[in-house]
């Protein structure tokens, strides 16, 4: 591989980075944790000859509580999210998802902004961000704007980020204590496997197991991560039992539009989605699903 063909810009501050981006725009490839970009370099398929290395922007590495919101600096790694007490208490579904990304070595490098910017339909942190009503903050040298994560993606590898913008912050809503949640992923093995199907779900059940509300997001089954809106609607207000679980899981498997690729066929992915949704809701029905603990550790 010919490493010498690349020029790397390594700004020390956000302002400096935005200045370079304003000038270079699409000429530079952004690199944060490097878990995707370094593979492109190794394979000799990276189109851009200039890189904007974001790894020294310490001001974008933080996790802060702000009332009902958790603010996550764009360069926070998966591992930092996994170890954060506030994320564990109020957004544990994101912790579970991050733990399934690659393996420890990848979780120590990869960043939340990288997963968003890379815009793979199989990005495992993304379904939890959908059910946590995440917002993505984009900054350029001149302005900033905030886009809901559900509107951020345009297709595989395509986002609304303009060439002069950086993802600088992701905000997520805290999930209410007591809510049931699950993140389930089917890969070809436990570690370092890309999702065939992933499901993130937060469900609010009353004490008689009636569904007050439910949010279901799926990865790797459509051009972008998607909410299973129809299935959410048909489930809301109804009694959770085995028949309803079957109905919801079937609804989800019909609502998605998976492709056939090297990892699995359309039909296989539909069945897998059915299975993952069924399994997760079954656990919620039986009381073995995980629950959001909120501010108090060990309550649930």
């Amino acid at each position, binding site marked *: 591989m010919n*490493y*010498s063909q*690349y*020029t*790397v810009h*390594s700004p020390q501050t956000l302002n400096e980075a935005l200045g370079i981006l304003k000038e270079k725009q699409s000429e530079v490839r952004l*690199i944060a*944790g*490097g*878990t995707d970009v*370094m*593979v492109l*370099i*190794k394979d000799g398929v990276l189109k851009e000859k200039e*890189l904007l*290395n974001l*790894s*020294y922007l310490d001001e974008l590495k933080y996790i802060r509580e702000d009332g009902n919101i958790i603010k996550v600096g764009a360069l926070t790694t998966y*591992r930092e999210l996994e170890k954060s007490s506030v994320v564990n208490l109020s957004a544990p579904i994101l912790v579970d998802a991050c733990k399934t990304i*690659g*393996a*420890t*070595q*990848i979780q*120590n*490098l990869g960043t939340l902004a990288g997963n968003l910017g890379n815009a793979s339909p199989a990005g495992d942190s993304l379904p939890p961000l959908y059910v946590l009503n995440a917002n993505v903050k984009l900054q350029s040298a001149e302005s900033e704007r905030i886009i809901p994560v559900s509107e951020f993606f345009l297709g595989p590898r395509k986002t609304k980020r303009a060439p002069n913008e950086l993802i600088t912050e992701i905000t997520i809503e805290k999930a209410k204590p007591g809510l049931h949640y699950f993140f389930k992923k089917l890969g070809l093995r*436990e*570690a*370092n496997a890309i999702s065939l199907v992933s499901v993130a779900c937060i469900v609010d059940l009353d004490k008689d197991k009636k569904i007050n509300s439910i949010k279901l997001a799926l990865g790797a089954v459509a051009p972008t991560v998607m909410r299973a809106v129809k299935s959410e609607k048909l489930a809301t207000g109804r009694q959770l039992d085995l028949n309803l679980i079957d109905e919801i899981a079937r609804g989800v498997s019909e609502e998605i539009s998976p492709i056939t690729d090297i990892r699995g066929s359309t039909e296989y992915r539909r069945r897998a989605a059915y299975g993952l949704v069924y399994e997760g809701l079954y656990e919620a029905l039986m009381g073995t699903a995980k629950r959001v603990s909120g501010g108090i550790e060990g309550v649930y």
Partner: protein
Amino acid sequence: MDVSVTFTLNGKQVTVKAPAAKSLLRTLREDLGITSVKPGCEAGECGACTVLMDGKAVTSCLVMLSQVEEHQIVTDEGLVKDGKLDPLQEAFVEEGASQCGYCTPGFVMSAKELLLEKPNPSENEILEAIGGNICRCGAYPRIVSAIKKAGGEQH
């Protein structure tokens, strides 16, 4: 484009001049003579090039040289103190935890991060910590024994 990068390698400050986008793995092997880090997949999937960066296990094939300025990098060589193997390395020897040995340094570094954080890890924690390392000879049971042994002995 070449850059000059200064960082701490196994406790000593080093400065290396090499292509800015070169991987840390290739830099360590080709420019700094550190051959314990092994090129396997060079895509972050096999773990043979694992090093500690600021105490955290990372695959050095995915780290760009331009990203290690002022960081602390530790490789297997750095675990040896005054010519004596680290208890973890010793345990790998005693348990016969390698066959061809190509994956061994990577496993040692992944296990090192775990033991630094959790001196007496459970079997599950060990399996999780080495989930990103592949041993094609299939020495896993002995690797796990070695890590368990080192966990018990170190503390």
